[in-house]
């Protein structure tokens, strides 16, 4: 099986890698590039823990082949903070304790970032449906929704 040479942009950096034709982008990120922030909770697009943004679209990286990233822009949780300055969503997740075990948190943050980019002033219902592709088993979602609401109001003010 011949490897596929891929040249892509991840969190603003040019990255080149070789991957197998059937290897998912999630596996490439985690196993080849050491970017383990995206998690594999199911591998079938049902939990959202591996969420990334691919050319401004929110996707599950487990449902994207590594080969497909050629020439595209990938954003992962590792690129969300600027240096030591957290993104407002990250800060609000901490302040609201919107995480318990934290395994779903990177996926939620990426999905919430995409949500606010497209809808800066979402209603509670829009947040709930916007984040319905991300499973959390610890929090009951209450504090996650509140953190996103709070972040949205901070980001609007900024």
């Amino acid at each position, binding site marked *: *099986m011949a490897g596929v040479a891929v040249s892509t942009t991840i969190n603003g950096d040019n990255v080149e890698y070789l991957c*197998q034709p*059937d290897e998912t982008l999630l596996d490439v990120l*985690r196993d080849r590039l050491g*970017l*383990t*922030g*995206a*998690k*594999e*909770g*199911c*591998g*079938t697009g*049902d*939990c959202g*823990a591996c969420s990334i943004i691919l050319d401004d679209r929110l996707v599950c990286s487990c449902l994207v082949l590594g080969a497909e990233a050629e020439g595209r822009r990938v954003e*992962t*949780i*590792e690129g*969300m*903070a600027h240096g030591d300055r*957290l993104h407002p969503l*990250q800060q609000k*997740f*901490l*302040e*609201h*304790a919107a*995480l*318990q*075990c*934290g*395994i*779903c*948190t*990177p996926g939620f*943050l990426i999905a919430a970032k995409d949500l606010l980019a497209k809808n800066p002033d979402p209603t*509670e*219902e829009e*947040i*709930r*449906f916007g*984040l*319905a*592709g*991300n*499973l*959390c*088993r*610890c*929090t*009951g*979602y*209450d*504090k*996650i*929704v*509140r953190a996103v609401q709070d972040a949205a109001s901070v980001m609007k003010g900024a």
Partner: protein
Amino acid sequence: MNFDPRYSNRSFTSVGTRPIRPDGVDKVTGRARYGADFNMAGQLVGRVLRSPHPHAKIRKIDTAKAEKLAGVKAVITAADLPDLTDGDAAMYDILDNCMARKKALYDGHAVAAVAAVDARTARQALKLIEVDYEVLLHVTDVDEAMKHTAPLLNDAIFTEGLEEKPVKPSNVTKRTQFGHGDIHEGFGQADFVVKRSFKTEQTHQGYIEPHACVASVSSDGTADLWVCTQGHFVYRQHCAQLLGMEASKLRVTSSEIGGGFGGKTHVWAEPVALALARKAGRPVKLVMTRDEVFRASGPTSATSIDVRIGARKDGTITAAEATLRYSCGPYAGMWAEIGAMTAFACYRLENVRTVGYEVLVNRPKTAAYRAPSAPMAAFAVESAIDELAKEIGMDPVEFRIRNAAQEGTRSSYGPVYGPIGIGPTLEAAKNHPHMKAPLGKNQGRGMACGFWFNFGGQTCTDLNIGMDGSVSLAVGTVDVGGSRASLSLVAAEELGIAYEQVKAVVADTSSLGYNDMTDGSRGTFSSSMATISAARNTIKILRERAAQMWDIPVDDVVWEKGHAIAKGEKYGNLAALSLKEIAAASGKTGGPIAGHSELVADGAGVSFATHICDIEVDPETGTTRVLRYTVVQDAGKAVHPTYVEGQYQGGAAQGIGWALNEEYIYGKDGRLQNPGFLDYRIPVCSDLPMIDTQILEIPNPNHPYGVRGVGETSIVPPLAAIANAVSNAAGVRMTHIPMSPPRILAAIEAERGG
């Protein structure tokens, strides 16, 4: 060692505040390392071959072809995990569950495993392993399995706990009984009796992180295991015993854990990974797929429960009885026993009897799931209580208040209660605005109570003072939901310093003494007790050092607000010494400063909750919508209230999923039909409303701060609270969990006579 755990009323500076958790930034930046986020040089990929049959004799396993495949470095079967359990039946079951020995006992039972250079090779190797099965008749339903005609899972099992010793083997491993008084007499006094049968389907803990570990075994017998677990010390003990290793040579590091809820209290893949690593001579990473998680780890019991409760016209319960049958998977358990103990624990009963039956079925080995066994029993009992209140014509809250257990009540499982919170949670629920909010068409309100024991157990904590006066707190209870924050607050409280000055870590098994696992809601209860004890031991040393620095008797030194203070007029010119100053001088005053604590935390203090919920039912489709949900629970003392709320909300959400949609669905072929998050439907964000919480604080007399465990009780009432709400909304009593739309619609149609 003379630690006094008794509660003393005091005011707090740090405890009760809501700071950001110490592991938080790593978790929001993707830096935190979970089970699958760790790698070792030269690591292989481990994969497990699983039985496709629910019940089959394993005649022969031929691994020759797999071993010859290029890139395969080890293939193991049960033969590579010889029985070293020495008559320990519980350990033997764990071993057999890790790798089937003579029979595959459920769809998904491990039968062999490989380690290969990459995942693709490992997958191919699994296909080359030839297993010769003799397929046997199987049984997956708990009631079916109890019948005399049912296929036997284990012909060496004879039911324990019967008055007459049985002569035939059975799938029922044990009968247990609890209670007091005379129920016949009690029912004789009743004006109203409700008798109902209930069923609950099997659910999974549903943690988002699949089981994952990396194992490495050196030729000198030392080994390392990196693993997501609720109890790395217990994993070490079990792995060492199963593999014939010395515990001290196996260092287990607990990774960040992506949810457990009881499902990570148990070794599944870890002994297999170690055996592969030992055989291959290279580290092995073994990560379960989601499909494997559902098929071969976790689940709780499926149950079948009969309840009978009688009461007088005035609303006094005169007798209560329950028969509870819980599935254990293929190995003996004590799940019905726990159900039988908790069933009526909320009530003050003169005559009560519960009988539990542990039942073997061809399903995965039952594991603990958050207040294990209690939610199903509470579903049955609290449903019947609601129905009885209705028959008597009493408000369901009033009826419960009238019969609630209180301090001095003999519990239905035996001992007499100390100060408890069931009454206060009921009163709070009664006065909650939620209770008075108006309801619309097709909407119903339900409420229910729940009880859980809470545990303590063996706990060991180290508190080290750095040369700069900062504090390292090493605990041995895995942090499953924010306990490092709570324990840092406790250390800060005792030492009288800022929360930020404390850094808590979960130490590996070679760095700290043995700890029981984080289960039974014991994490914060036990480790806070050990942290208080360690901090007090540290303060004693700090006072001694200060006394040395001042050259005065230690008895004249007190510790206040993070400083040593020389007490009395004569020392008026001595400025208080800060922790930092004492630490800086420690090299001259006797060396490093540390406090330790090793204790058995007893007296965990039982916990009670009352939940209220509103549900709307679509009578044409059976769809439900949770409109509003309120949790009232006693925390003893909420150390970090935000995380206490989080436990309440999370437990409620899991209970809502269980009540409405989650279930293991087996086909006639005994295979699990829905081993994935698409068809095993845990609640998503848009399924739930905000979950209101009310924290009550009825101090636990057996903890210095009054802390009780809070993690589990919140999953006990939801099944019943929702069943009561759905029943009220739909106008028909729901007796089968989950109340999925087809079940609700069928019940409505049956009620209509349609």
